[in-house]
Structure formats: structure tokens, C-alpha cells
């Protein structure tokens, strides 16, 4: 099998049987159980102890999440203390179901990949819980909000800890549910309710892909266990592996808002801002990347699927970046940028063994700086009476200095300012892409330039430039409970690059994703880094030239180029869906109903009304006159006699 786009490198994925969860690792299940318990208490305890939960419910939710984080931290250090070969720990909780040869256990797997995810989910999750205490302070349904957040954390942990695809699917659907509940949390707004529904429906499309992939795995391998499949994958037919890979990619596209299933993410910004930060930036939307990296043993043997991953990734990273350039809603700009950054992660995951570790690295740093910026945006909205339009912002450096400074750290990280975390992670992905295929690399570099443009535009419109506030708005700094998470996340955004020191993350993840032989890039690494930085600098300068030096109108101008109009309309993503899927679907359905009404109903109802009509005509014979009955009897007898005669004599 040869890779059709890239030169396929030889690789060896170590298939290590996970060791038993003994000692400290026996508490692994608690990581999931704690937030789940929190969700149960907060969601089901409401009717019993409404008053008490309204007072302390948010602390309860935060405490469960923090407890989960502490255990994750402990487990992480225990894992670091082990030898490299023994860093895969399995815990078999119970048999989930068993029928005939079909046997699925509720098994957990703790390895370097899930360890990093555990830290990200519980760490960032806990910070966002703390932030929400301040952000949701005046919401009457705050207790329920924290219940949903805990439910989300539990489901996400299930997703990354499961040792088989079926358990992963359980978590996958769980985060989908939590996402739906939280996007539509302010359900009194019709737009929020519609956005929640849209996210749910589009995610169903992706979920069909994932569930079909799992079904295909059961057919092909008879199991959905990661370790078992990675051992057997070599013996399976290439077609089956390609099909599984493409179906997994469809699932990943739905969850991670990749083209063509991208249109729900921008609408999902209707949810409360901490939700956007946790679910639609840092964790849930990266589940697709996790899925592909986790399924490396399948994608390595399915080069066609891998190529499709790269194509999807490149299209998305440009698509999201272009959206980010035209939006005026601060959260939608960040959502577009999230799409684009996940595109980078997908690109890394599609590049194979060389890119997996960098995809996860970018995922982690992105989790830090994007959560930071979303929470920062929430803080700005908090001070601006929940206005999201950047054309009503400006000159906020004085009134909210902490938000400004922490946001600036996130900004420098995402554009890849040298030394900041995003610089290291994005640079590595572009470098790997260039080494594999120059076109992909150049497009990724272009994406980095656009990122520089739209993030600078956001910074200029929000914090710098002159003030364009609405009347009666008094911007103020958010309370400490909100700024402290910002400061922690800002520190992580700056320092996240440490993970790359001495290629630590590459070595750490090697037991899961394998280790590539170093590929010689076409240019020296330093030159590539300089080039990327130059492209970003051009993007930043362009933003300064087009946005910073001019006066920003309070109303979005209408006489704009076609490109701007297209980007404002989400590059017609909804129109494409409408035209390609919804419209034809509606036609098929209306055709079917017409066929049902005319064909099936017509036959049935026509038959019955024909019988009825005949009966109506013939009932006139029943006129009640005995003599006419007698006459018909006579006629009948005569007819019978006549017939008998004819038959007998002929």
C-alpha cells in the first residue's frame, strides 16, 4: 500500500498490553465518577433541596471537578514515575454486556495520551467552573448550569478514558447531549434553542459515521477494543480499513466542526460564554482530533483515509480563518478561529506518525489560549452589558486592565508570537506539513497569516482604537473569581511551549502513537520558522493598515466586496446545506408523502368507496315491497332453470 499524496514512512506501533491498574491507579474510575456524582446531585437533588443547592450548588460542582483534577494530577505524576514500557494501565470495571460471542466490557485505559487529556479536561474544566461562579452569579438556574457542566466533564472523561470504541461512543454521545443542553441553556431565546437543535442534528450526521465505523469494526475484528484492533489491523483488508477510517473521519468532522459539518459551531456561540470556552473551544470540539490520533493504527494502514483527513483539515483551517476575518461578533470570530485551529490539529493528525504528537501538542496549547480568550471575551461582555458586537467596544485597556493583559497573552499565543505556546505548536505542524507535501505546508502557512490578521483586528476593535460604547455602558473589570482563572490560563498560554522542550511530548506520546524517523524538511527548520513568523507579521501589519489606521464605523458597512459578504454569511455554509441536503431531502419527503397519499391511500380509499358506491346503488332493491321480492325470486328461479336447460341440451 502506498500513500497517494505523501511518501509513507516506515513505522512501528508498539502494541503493549496494558498492565493492571494496581496501587494508586486503582482510583482511576473515580476521575469519571466524581463529576458524574456531582451532576447527579445537582440535577436530581434540585427538587429535594432547592434552597440549599441554590446557595452552595456552584461550590459543590466546582469541588467535584477540582477533586477529579487532583486525582488526574496524582495519576499523571505516578505515570511519569513508571518506565516507558509500563505506561499503559487498564482497568476493567465490569462487563457492560455479553451476548453470545459479543462481549463488551466497561474498560478504562490510562496511557500517556489519555493522561494529557485528563489534565486538560479537568484542569481547564475546573478553572472554567471557578470562572462560572462569577459569570453566572445572577442566573436563577445557576445550580442546573453547574450540573450540566459536571455532566459534560464526566462524559468527556469517559470519552478519553475508555479502552474500547463503544465506551468512547458512550462519552461521545454524552458530550453531545451536554453540549446541546448548554448551548440551549438560555432556552427563552429562540435563537439559542434553534442553535442547540442545529448543533444536535448536525452532530447526529457525524455520529452516524462513528456508529457505522464501530459496527464495521465488530464485523471485521469482532471487537472494539483499542489494543485488540491495533494488533489485528494488519491482517484486515485494505478496503475495510479505508471504510472504517473514512467513517471515523465523518464522526470527527461532526464533533470537531470540520467542513462539511462545520456550520453548527458559529451558532453554538448562543450558549453562555464559559460553555463556549470549555466545550466549543478547549475540549469537546477537539474530540475529533483525539479520535483520529487514538485510531492511528487504522489510519496508518488506510492512506486514502489519511489523505482525506489532510484535505478536510486544510479546507477547514482556511474556511474558519476567512470567517474570522469578517465577523463583528467577538465570540463568532473566536469560533471561526477555533475551527481554523482544529483544522491545524486535524492536519497534524492526518500527517501520520510524524504529526500525531504535534496535533496533541497544539490541541493542549490551543486549549489554554483559546479558553483564555473566550473567558476574556466573556469578561468583556460582562463589563459591556452582554453586548457582543466589537463595533461597540474600543478603548477598554484602562477600564479592564487584567482582562486586556490576559487576553493579549492569548492573542500573542494564537498568532504564534515567538516564544509563546502557539508559536511552538503551530510551527511544528507547518514544518511537518512542509516536509510531507509542500502545497499543504504553504496553505497552512497562509492560514497562519490570516490568523494574524483577524486576531489583530479583534484586538484592535475590542481593546484599542477609540471608544464606541453604547450610551449608559460603564465598562468595569470583572470580579476576582473571574480574573484569577484568566491569569492562570494566560500563564499557561505563555508557558505551554515548555512541553516541547527536548521533544518531551513526542517521546511521552511515543508508546501510543509510535515514533517517526525524522523526515528531512525541504528547508532548514530555522528558515521555516522565520518564514512563518514573516507571514504572520504581514497578516498583523495588514490588520493594522486596514483596521487600526482607519476609523471603525459603528455600523457594519454595506458597500463591501463579495468576499466580505460571503464570509459574513459563513461562506454560505448554511445555504450549501440547504441546497444540497435540506432542500433535496424535503423534496424526497414531499414526493414520498404524495406517493403515499395518491398511490397507497388512493388504492385503499378508492377500493372502499367503490364498494360503498355499489352498495348505495344496489340497496334500492331493498324497497320493502314483498311482491317485488317475490318477482326477483321468480326471475332468479327462471334464470337458473334456463341455465340448466341450456347446459343440459347443448
Amino acid at each position, binding site marked *: 500500500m502506498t500513500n497517494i499524496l505523501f511518501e509513507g514512512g516506515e513505522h512501528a506501533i508498539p502494541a503493549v498490553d496494558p498492565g493492571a491498574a494496581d496501587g494508586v491507579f486503582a482510583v482511576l474510575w473515580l476521575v469519571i465518577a466524581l463529576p458524574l456524582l456531582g451532576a447527579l446531585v445537582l440535577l436530581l437533588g434540585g427538587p429535594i433541596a432547592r434552597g440549599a443547592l441554590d446557595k452552595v450548588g456552584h461550590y459543590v460542582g466546582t469541588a467535584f471537578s477540582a477533586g477529579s483534577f487532583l486525582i488526574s494530577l496524582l495519576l499523571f505524576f505516578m505515570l511519569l514515575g513508571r518506565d516507558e514500557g509500563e505506561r499503559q494501565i487498564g482497568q476493567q470495571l465490569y462487563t457492560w454486556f455479553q451476548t453470545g460471542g459479543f462481549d463488551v466490557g466497561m474498560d478504562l485505559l490510562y496511557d500517556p495520551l489519555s493522561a494529557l487529556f485528563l489534565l486538560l479536561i479537568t484542569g481547564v474544566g475546573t478553572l472554567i467552573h471557578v470562572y462560572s461562579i462569577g459569570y453566572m452569579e445572577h442566573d436563577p438556574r445557576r445550580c442546573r448550569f453547574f450540573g450540566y457542566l459536571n455532566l459534560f466533564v464526566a462524559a468527556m472523561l469517559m470519552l478519553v478514558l475508555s479502552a474500547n470504541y463503544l465506551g468512547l461512543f458512550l462519552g461521545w454521545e454524552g458530550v453531545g447531549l451536554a453540549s446541546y443542553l448548554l448551548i440551549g441553556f438560555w432556552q427563552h431565546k429562540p435563537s439559542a434553542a434553534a442553535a442547540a437543535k442545529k448543533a444536535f442534528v448536525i452532530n447526529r450526521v457525524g455520529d452516524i459515521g462513528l456508529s457505522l465505523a464501530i459496527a464495521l469494526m465488530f464485523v471485521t475484528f469482532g471487537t472494539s477494543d483499542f489494543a485488540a484492533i491495533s494488533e489485528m489491523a494488519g491482517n484486515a483488508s485494505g478496503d475495510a480499513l479505508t471504510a472504517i477510517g473514512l467513517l471515523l473521519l465523518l464522526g470527527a468532522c461532526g464533533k470537531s466542526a470540520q467542513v462539511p459539518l462545520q456550520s453548527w459551531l458559529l451558532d453554538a456561540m448562543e450558549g453562555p460564554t464559559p460553555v463556549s470556552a470549555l466545550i466549543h473551544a478547549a475540549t469537546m470540539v477537539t474530540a475529533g482530533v483525539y479520535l483520529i490520533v487514538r485510531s492511528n493504527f487504522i489510519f496508518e494502514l488506510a492512506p486514502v483515509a489519511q489523505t482525506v483527513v489532510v484535505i478536510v483539515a486544510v479546507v477547514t483551517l482556511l474556511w474558519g480563518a476567512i470567517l474570522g476575518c469578517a465577523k463583528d461578533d467577538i465570540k463568532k470570530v473566536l469560533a471561526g478561529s477555533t475551527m481554523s485551529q482544529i483544522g491545524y490539529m486535524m492536519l497534524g493528525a492526518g500527517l501520520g506518525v510524524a504529526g500525531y504528537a504535534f496535533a496533541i501538542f497544539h490541541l493542549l496549547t490551543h486549549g489554554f489560549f483559546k479558553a483564555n480568550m473566550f473567558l476574556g471575551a466573556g469578561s468583556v461582555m460582562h463589563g459591556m452589558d452582554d453586548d457582543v458586537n466589537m463595533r461597540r467596544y474600543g478603548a477598554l485597556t484602562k477600564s479592564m486592565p487584567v482582562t486586556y493583559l490576559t487576553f493579549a497573552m492569548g492573542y500573542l499565543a494564537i498568532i504564534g508570537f515567538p516564544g509563546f505556546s502557539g508559536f511552538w505548536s503551530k510551527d511544528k505542524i507547518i514544518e511537518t506539513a512542509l516536509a510531507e507535501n509542500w502545497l499543504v505546508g504553504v496553505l497552512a502557512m497562509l492560514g497562519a497569516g490570516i490568523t494574524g490578521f483577524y486576531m489583530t483586528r479583534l484586538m484592535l476593535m475590542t481593546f484599542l482604537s477609540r471608544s464606541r460604547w453604547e450610551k449608559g455602558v460603564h465598562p468595569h473589570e470583572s470580579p476576582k473569581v473571574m480574573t484569577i482563572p484568566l491569569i492562570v490560563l494566560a500563564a499557561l498560554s505563555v508557558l505551554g511551549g515548555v512541553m516541547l522542550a527536548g521533544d518531551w511530548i513526542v517521546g511521552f506520546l511515543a508508546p501510543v502513537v509510535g515514533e517517526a524517523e525524522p523526515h528531512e524538511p525541504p528547508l532548514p527548520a530555522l528558515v521555516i520558522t522565520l518564514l512563518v513568523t514573516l507571514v504572520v507579521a504581514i497578516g498583523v501589519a495588514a490588520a493594522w493598515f486596514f483596521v487600526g489606521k482607519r476609523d471603525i464605523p459603528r455600523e457594519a458597512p454595506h458597500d463591501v466586496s463579495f468576499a466580505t459578504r460571503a464570509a459574513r454569511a459563513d461562506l454560505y455554509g448554511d445555504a450549501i446545506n440547504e441546497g444540497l441536503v435540506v432542500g433535496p431531502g424535503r423534496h424526497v419527503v414531499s414526493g414520498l408523502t404524495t406517493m403515499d397519499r395518491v398511490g397507497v391511500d388512493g388504492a385503499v380509499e378508492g377500493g372502499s368507496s367503490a364498494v360503498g358506491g355499489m352498495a348505495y346503488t344496489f340497496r*334500492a332493491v*331493498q*324497497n*320493502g*315491497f*314483498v*311482491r317485488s321480492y317475490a*318477482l326477483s325470486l*321468480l326471475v332468479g328461479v327462471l334464470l337458473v332453470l334456463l341455465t340448466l336447460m341450456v347446459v343440459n341440451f347443448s
Partner: protein
Amino acid sequence: MTQYVVLSAILFTIGCVGVLTRRNAIVVFMCVELMLNASNLALVAFAKQHGNLDGQIAAFFVMVVAAAEVVVGLAIIMTIFRTRRSASVDDASLLKY
């Protein structure tokens, strides 16, 4: 022999036409009796011709049935006449569509 059958046919036809044309229930009833007796005549005639008793036995059965019918039928006609003051068969036409 032929005469018996011809007489039987004539009697039957008279009874038949009577049933179809007359309105008075008593007359209709009498015509029905006429038809029964016409068929009795035919049965007996054929029995004599074939020289066995089958037809004659059948004729007895018809007579028994006719007697029973008269009992029931006249009772019904009496009742109808008492309630409606009329013995016309066309008046008793409520049982229809």
C-alpha cells in the same frame, strides 16, 4: 298423463301471477296455497307414472308444511290487520333501506 302436468302448470302459473299482482294478503296467501297444491299435483302424477311412492310421500310432507304455514301466516296477517286496519301487503313495507 300430459293433462295432469299441464293442469299443474296452469294452476302454478295462476298462483304465481296472483302472488305477484294481488295486494290483499289473504288472496296472496291463497295463491301461495294454490302453487303448493299445483306442485303436489305434479308430484303425485309423476309418482303414479313411475309406480313408486316417493312422490306421494313428498306430497304429504308439502301438505303438512302448508298446514303449519297457514297457522303461522294467518296469525301474522290477523295481527297486522288488527294494528293497521289493513291487509294490504304493500302497506307493510317498513323493513327497507
